């Protein structure tokens, strides 16, 4: 792929804890083109956030990326960069928006100061120009009366407004890639609609690529071009949004879609998944979804299925689609 912006190959990330090695991400690969949106979906603990933090290399101390994988950004290997070089990419080229806007903002600085810091770190504007830039950014993300608001502290803003501030901050340096980790989970539906609309509009305007991490399949259906469904640290299905929702292949994706109440048919019993996600310290042999799968067969217990291209551009990791 020529205009490939980000290419992740065989990424493994583990946490080394007292309870043993927790393999949070176990060999995932995907790529993202300029200006496109990739959705990472899955339930809690499936490795969505760890994937994002691995790309940013913002992992906590006890976590390590296993050698052998690769994260190529604009053809550059991020895993081989020095801290200094990484800092130039982080924030400037790749920005991140976190789930909880209250903890992501510093409570003792005004929002104006916090956004200006991002501009000054990555640009060469003087203070006055930077302040004007802040006001412009706040206007872009739809904050009313931005010249007054820059003097506000985070606690004076509502959740939706704080999330807008974080988005403004992430966009301050004109990144090519924005990683949004559950950006609307802490927000009410009407505010969620506002923020998703905003992200979509800004993406159209600035041609940035987005990795949108969410557990909400509705958000995925509306906002992303491609979806990677994750389960227990691996990608079990990858497809365009259309294909994934029209014709889900992996039993886990099917179950996930089946467990959401549909707006029309309320008498139907929800299709539930039995049991819960396996513990990542003691992973079973064979397919990790075996215990909960409705379409399992004897061989699933022994074979660890690989992600194979079942149809053009539609990948699944399941014995049902293994060749041979």
């Amino acid at each position, binding site marked *: 792929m020529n205009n490939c912006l980000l290419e992740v190959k065989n990424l493994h990330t583990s946490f080394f804890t007292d309870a043993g090695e927790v393999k949070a991400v176990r060999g995932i690969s995907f790529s993202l083109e300029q200006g496109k949106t990739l959705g990472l979906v899955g*339930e*809690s603990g499936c490795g969505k956030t760890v994937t994002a933090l691995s790309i940013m290399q913002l992992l906590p101390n006890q976590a390590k990326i296993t050698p052998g994988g690769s994260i190529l950004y604009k053809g550059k290997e991020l895993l081989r960069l020095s801290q200094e070089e990484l800092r130039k990419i982080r924030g400037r080229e790749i920005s991140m928006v976190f789930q909880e806007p209250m903890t992501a903002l510093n409570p003792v600085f005004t929002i104006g100061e916090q956004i200006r810091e991002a501009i000054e770190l990555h640009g060469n504007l003087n203070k006055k120009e930077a302040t004007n830039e802040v006001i412009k950014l706040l206007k872009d993300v739809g904050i*009313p009366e931005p010249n007054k608001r820059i003097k506000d502290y985070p606690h004076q803003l*509502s959740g*939706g*407004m704080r999330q807008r501030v974080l988005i403004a901050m992430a966009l301050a340096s004109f990144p090519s890639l924005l990683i949004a980790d559950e950006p609307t989970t802490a927000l*009410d*539906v*009407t*505010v*969620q*609609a*506002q923020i*998703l*609309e905003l992200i979509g509009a800004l993406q159209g305007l600035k041609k940035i690529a987005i990795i949108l991490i969410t*557990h*909400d*399949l*509705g*958000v995925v*259906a*509306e906002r992303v071009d491609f979806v990677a469904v994750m389960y227990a640290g691996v990608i079990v299905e990858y497809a365009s*949004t*259309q294909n994934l*929702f029209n014709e889900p292949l992996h039993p886990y994706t099917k*179950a*996930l*879609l*089946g*467990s*959401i*109440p*549909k*707006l029309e048919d*309320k008498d139907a*019993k*929800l*299709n*539930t*998944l039995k049991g*819960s*996600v396996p513990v990542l310290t003691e992973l079973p042999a064979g397919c990790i979804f075996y215990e909960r799968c409705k379409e399992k067969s004897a061989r699933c217990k022994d074979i660890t299925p690989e992600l194979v291209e079942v149809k053009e551009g539609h990948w699944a990791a399941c014995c049902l689609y293994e060749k041979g």
Partner: protein
Amino acid sequence: MGELLKVQNITKYFPAKTGFFESSGAPIHALNDISFAIAQGETLGLVGESGCGKSTLAKVIARLILPTSGKIFFEGDDITSVNGARLKKIRRNIQFVFQDPHASLNPHMTIGSTVSEPFVIHGLSGAKKALLEAENILDLVGISKEAVKRYPHEFSTGQRQRIAIARALALTPKLIIADEPIASLDVSIQAQILNLLKELKEKFNLTYLFISHDLRIIEYISDRVIVMYLGKIMEIASSRDLYKHPIHPYTEALLSAIPVINPQSKKKRIILKGEIPATTKLPSGCVFHTRCIYVKQRCIDEIPKLTKHDNRFFACHFPL
């Protein structure tokens, strides 16, 4: 179907804080003139965004907090200010399932003592027999009997919520108030709990007041739905009517904001402007007028009353 619970003109103000950092100011208007009834055997959904007063209303009904004014009737009896033995009897019939089962189960008590405690408190059986009862109830919610000897931290969130449901169910109450019971769970676990609640309802002829901010879940579980905004009821209708044809502009906006699980659907979306106003300074007239896309002068001047029309209630001067 008879009326199980009726609330009449419930209002709840919380006095303004007068601490060191808080300037004394206007009180918080959490609930304003709320009236509705729950029929025996129905599931009434209560939906609205954060801060609209859903949980305060639930606590007022469960008699966990007292309303500033208004009345609550349970099976025809005024329970607004009962206490002592009569309140204890009410508690037996109105039970609560909370959002976060990590906080609602006592970490120092075994599951057995948590679930059997209601029997002992209400003097229905001795400790030994109560434990057997607890085992039976746990079995009903899909938790194995060995659980009675174990502690809450040994269970996953989904299992803990099952245990919290078992505890609420222990004395076969008539009304169960479930306040965001599945909000902290993953989708696949949410579905398990929703199915369980539906099953139990049929088995024990329960009545639910089901609170959620998730409109999809509310539609799935509810017979009728109340939509709240800023401490007021905007609309009450059967779930079928409400989702097919919302009458209140707020309901319309709320429904249009639900992300659709179908990438092809090109749904018309109403993006509300601005933010929910503060509950200390309610807007004049209709509380929704600051964000309503159809707002007219009358909405700013005059408070709309909750009016009944064809089995539906709505508080709007210009219904859709």
